């Protein structure tokens, strides 16, 4: 219940939330960010020169901040994009880059906390959630998917999503989701799975969280364009055989995920980041330095 009380208190001031988006290019990551913010936040990828296409660019970490208004609640949303992930022939380096970025934000907090005189305008850049875009192969998780989620989950709430989910028929989607969750369990990957306590929490919370948990990994379809469907204007993709609507919960899980991230579970994600993930990092780091001193 804590997150709901917290929400009422902060409604006037607004919230700050930082989300990182990771996934191979071509999975709709950039489109997702723009669809989420309903604005052209991330510029369209510039076409590289064809004779430079063989050059391995490497991963870049790019934060963008937007001010959103969610039903009267102001949210200062920072989205951290990670173009270049998984695009190289050897992608080992990518993991270190992302991990390094996350830990640097923790380091900043750590040093700020230790100051005698703290900066009242200190900006907390810790990342509260990571949306990992899984390639819709139709089989199961690939090695790079497993590696990424395993290595990053000690430092951040990992939420797996399926990019370009309109590749799947309804049956294929259900099967793929099932296999992905089986893989996640088999490899012991601790993802953010909308935790609830059936004994402590009220029925509404249990139901809400169970539903979100059952949707994992969230099927994403992104689209920035509006098209006409039966006289209405919708955000969707127009195929020769039909139109896929982004905001239609029968077509994908975008709307539900958006609500979870920016409304219902925003506080929970922040609290877990601060009370648990950051604390673990702090303990590990301080113990290491204590060890080093005593050597």
């Amino acid at each position: 219940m804590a997150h709901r009380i917290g929400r009422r208190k902060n409604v006037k001031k607004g919230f700050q939330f930082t989300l990182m988006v990771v996934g191979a290019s071509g999975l709709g990551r950039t489109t997702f960010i723009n669809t989420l913010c309903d604005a052209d936040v991330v510029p369209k990828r510039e076409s590289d020169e064809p004779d430079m296409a063989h050059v391995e660019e490497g991963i870049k970490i790019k934060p963008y901040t937007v001010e959103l208004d969610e039903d009267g609640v102001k949210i200062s949303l920072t989205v951290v994009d990670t173009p270049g992930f998984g695009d190289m022939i050897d992608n080992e380096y990518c993991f270190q880059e992302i991990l390094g970025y996350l830990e640097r934000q923790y380091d900043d907090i750590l040093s700020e906390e230790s100051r005698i005189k703290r900066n009242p305008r200190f900006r907390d850049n810790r990342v509260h959630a990571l949306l990992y875009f899984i390639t819709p192969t139709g089989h199961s998780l690939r090695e790079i998917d497993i590696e990424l989620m395993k290595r990053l989950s000690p430092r951040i709430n990992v939420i797996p999503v399926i990019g370009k989910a309109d590749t799947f028929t309804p049956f294929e989607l259900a099967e793929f989701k099932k296999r992905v969750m089986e893989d996640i369990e088999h490899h012991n990957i601790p993802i953010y799975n909308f935790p609830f306590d059936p004994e402590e929490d009220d029925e509404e919370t249990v139901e809400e969280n169970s539903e979100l948990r059952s949707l994992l990994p969230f099927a994403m379809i992104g689209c920035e364009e509006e098209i006409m469907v039966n006289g209405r204007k919708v955000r969707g993709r127009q195929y020769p055989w039909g139109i896929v609507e982004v905001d239609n919960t029968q077509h994908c899980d975008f709307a539900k995920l958006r609500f979870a991230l920016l409304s219902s579970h925003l506080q929970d994600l922040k609290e877990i980041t601060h009370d648990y993930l950051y604390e673990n990092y702090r303990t590990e780091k301080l113990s290491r330095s204590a060890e080093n001193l005593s050597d």
Partner: protein
Amino acid sequence: MSTPEVGAGIGIANLPNQRHKIVAKRGASLTLMVCGESGLGKTTFINTLFTTTIKTPKNYKRRYNKSAEKTVEIEIIRAELEEKQFNVKLSVVDTPGFGDYTNNRDSWMPIIDFIDDQHESYMRQEQQPKRHELSDMRVHCCLYFIRPTGHTLKPLDIEVMKRLGTRVNLIPVIAKADTMTPTDLHKFKKRILEVIAAQNIQCYSFPLESDDDASTRRNMSIMAAMPFSIIGSTEDVLTADGRTVKGRQYSWGVAEVENEDHCDFKKLRQLLIRTHMLDLISSTEESHYENYRHAQMETRKIGEAK
């Protein structure tokens, strides 16, 4: 000097028919390679192309039994197809594991080695005293499956395609094309062709001119569609207007395999099976094999090991 016209004809014009009879009797042997990351519909495509289960779908229950070895395998599936008394011995070479790992450096080696090994093996056999029963696994065509990202070819794609293009008839295809809207597809195709040209990747091409206008036009329309966008499906589904077709049934409509407004499957099938199968085979024997042999002969003596 002009070639004298043979008056009344001596029967040279009948040679194509003779060749047809010889081939019809002997049947053809086709080795097709499919290459690309997993999950791009390679198996489904093969089964769709030959309207029969050439390769069975993956058994997911066994996925945790895989060894920790990160290798690219070469898998050969053989089938014998017959249509109207014409036989084709089909071999499909699959390359599971390619592009699937975090580090894919040099993952193309097993694939390139396989292609070269077939040329090598044929060359050796040809040099034997007894050579009437040659086993020929030379790859006649390699379909390279490109992920439908909508952006461009990845460095890994470029590295492999460059190496494939000089050794085998390379045909790039855009996999799972039903992920892309027509505009996106058009842009993507254009982009890929630009990169292929800029990176000097050799793709399969064939002479467009033919005896009749209809064939020439058809050839041109096939070439213009490269890289071919494909949708694969072995399932029969019902369309909105009541037809039963091979396709994929989404909540928002049915993508049809054989509908030329939906994908280029028909054109590719035309190319591979109906019109250019013999050209794929003969160009492998005449061009690619000869190139290999030539390169080897320059540095080696007959009979010497590689």
